[in-house]
């Protein structure tokens, strides 16, 4: 059981699990940063990338510890949302990542599943942290989300614990091709339906989705895709009477 080969294998796997938890811990910050790049080109609203980067970095490195020390000293200054994100979400996950390094994971499926659920719950706790809590005996907007968020943190931790204490399956194999192309087809459809209409977006999405399987035969896919597009173009707008554009906007005008 405890031969060196097996041991070193678990050790490397633990490190990679810990590293992915660290990435998970800063995922919201990274996501906001990527999102904010769009503001340079005038897409969407929000803070610019530079502001996002600086405020999150200061919150993670300096802001949160300052608040932590301040709260011990009885200083009740209101923390900013970035600092709260670091405190409520990132720090606990970092802590879990560090703890992971020293654990023997007996069922990676349960352990990782539990921790990710815990992360989701912590994120929900942060997202509802600006809502009002109990007012006397009546519930505020934030009471129920906090209650269930706290419950989910506990449940996630319990699931992770079973992953440490009992033997179980290791991580399942993920494939990338199917999810990638199916997602691409969905996103393309969502972006194209308004400007390009049902006919173009349905056919193009069909072809993108078909790329997701290595079994696809192209000629066959084109024929079936065309028939399906025709069917949908008749079924949804005419038979079911749902309003949607048929052809690209620039062709009609």
């Amino acid at each position, binding site marked *: 059981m405890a031969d060196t080969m097996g041991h070193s294998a678990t050790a490397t796997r633990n490190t990679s699990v810990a590293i992915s938890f660290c990435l998970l811990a800063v995922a919201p910050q990274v996501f906001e940063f990527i999102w904010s790049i769009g503001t340079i080109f005038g897409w969407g609203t929000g803070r610019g990338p530079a502001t996002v980067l600086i405020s999150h970095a200061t919150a993670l490195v300096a802001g949160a510890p300052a608040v932590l020390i301040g709260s011990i000293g009885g200083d009740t200054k209101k923390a900013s949302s970035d600092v709260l994100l670091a405190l409520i979400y990132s720090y606990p996950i970092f802590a879990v990542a560090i703890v992971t390094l020293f654990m023997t994971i007996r069922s990676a499926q349960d352990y990782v599943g539990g921790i990710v659920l815990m992360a989701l719950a912590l994120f929900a706790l942060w997202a509802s942290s600006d809502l009002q809590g109990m007012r006397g005996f009546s519930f505020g907007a934030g009471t*129920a989300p906090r209650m269930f968020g706290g419950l989910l943190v506990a449940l996630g931790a319990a699931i992770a614990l079973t992953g440490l204490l009992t033997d179980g399956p290791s991580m399942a194999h993920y494939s990338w091709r199917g999810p990638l192309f199916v997602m691409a087809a969905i996103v393309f459809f969502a972006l194209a339906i308004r400007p390009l209409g049902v006919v173009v977006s349905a056919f193009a999405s069909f072809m993108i989705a078909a790329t997701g*399987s290595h079994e696809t035969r192209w000629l066959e896919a084109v024929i079936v895709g065309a028939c399906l597009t025709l069917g949908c173009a008749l079924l949804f707008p005419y038979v079911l009477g749902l309003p*949607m554009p048929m052809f690209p906007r620039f062709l009609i005008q």
Partner: protein
Amino acid sequence: MDLFANLAHGFAVAFSPINLLMCLIGALVGTLVGVLPGIGTIATVAMLLPITFGLPPVGALIMLAGIYYGAQYGGSTTSILVNIPGEATSVVTAIDGHQMAKQGRAGPALAIAAIGSFFAGCVATVLIAVLGAPLTKLALAFGPAEYFSLMVLGLIFAVVLAKGSVLKAIAMIVFGLLLSMVGSDIETGASRMAFNIPELADGLGFATVAMGVFGFAEIIRNLDAGAEMNRDLVQQKITGLMPTRKDLKDSAPAILRGTALGSILGILPGGGAVIASFAAYTLEKKLARDPSRFGRGAIEGVAGPESANNAAAQTSFIPLLTLGIPPNAVMALMVGAMTIHGIVPGPQVMQKQPDLVWGMIASMWIGNLMLIIINLPLVGIWVRLLRVPYRLMFPSIVIFCAIGIYSVNNAPVDVILAGVFGLVGYWLIKHDFEPAPLLLGMVLGPLMEENLRRALLISRGDWSVFLTRPLSAVLLGIAAFLLVLTVLPALRSKRDEVFTESEN
């Protein structure tokens, strides 16, 4: 004699040409999609939900109900013919049904499944009509505290009877409850966890999440390398359709027992058709003189579970129509459909919308009759449909789902959200979490929160109200008892036994 007057009224509604047509379309489409492997009842109803938007409410619900039990039928067809249960309820049917098909007795197996389902459907229809009114009276005695406790009981039931880890099932329910809180708060109007995204202000769409977690996730998973094996379809020859006299004699008691068991389990929240079919199979095996025949093509192993799942599928409408509480995920979708049509499910529906309720009940019987007529001659066509290669089927399903979600609100963001939930669902499958409790939690979330708030407001913040009101205390007591029973190892091993049997 109220009962007969009501039923007569219902039949008058259901026999109108438009509703007959809706019933037929629903049953046909349900069977069609139920036959497709990998797409279960929940996904079917979720996908076809948008289609019913343009219809009048009665027609829409009749059609959805038709889709629901049509899918039950279709699922059993594939499990018998090709050993692919179209959905969870027909998993047990596949054990003995497919063995019968291998012995060339697919015809009798299909016929008994159809006859058993039809009989169970008839009994359940009468049961709904009989029990509906008294249960509604009971429902009027329910205050917020009782409602909350009842929902807790329902969720606990879903946990106890779900397969796999109890802890994971509870976690999924809580996750669903959290998801249901995205959007505006009902009482204060405060925006919760919406991140200033206007599309989230109204909350996560139920159809969006359901289609993502069930539809897209299922497709993505089927594209995994190695999953081709499970999709391999075998053509079986069907010789002779009608069961022999001996078959009928063997299966008659099994059908009766299955119907009784299924009717009871269907009414209980959280139970539903899946549990009913497993329980019926176990019961038949326990009662049989020669249990070793099971798994080798025993006709009782088809008759019992098939009747039970159909009976349960129909009686699960009872809690929905009388208490407004969906006992399982499909019924949860029905609540979604009702809400879209501006109907609030609950005790008042029976009085305010007699057309809807009794029309739907009557249409169930008609639908079952249609199914038995449709299903038997069409078996050959269903088998041919199974030979449509998956490489063509999956992009079609993706497009169909995408257009469907877009048409709900004309919102492209919904389509992307459904895609994201598809990835979430894929992750859940990979980590052995069941998505069905998540959906149930998401639907019950707003109701639960509202009743919890109200109960505590009335009791002036006193949490003991849930224990001092007798009805609520009884419900919570049952829930606690069930949970304790599940955690006890004795029952646990028994649970595992029931489910390992099905996997042989």
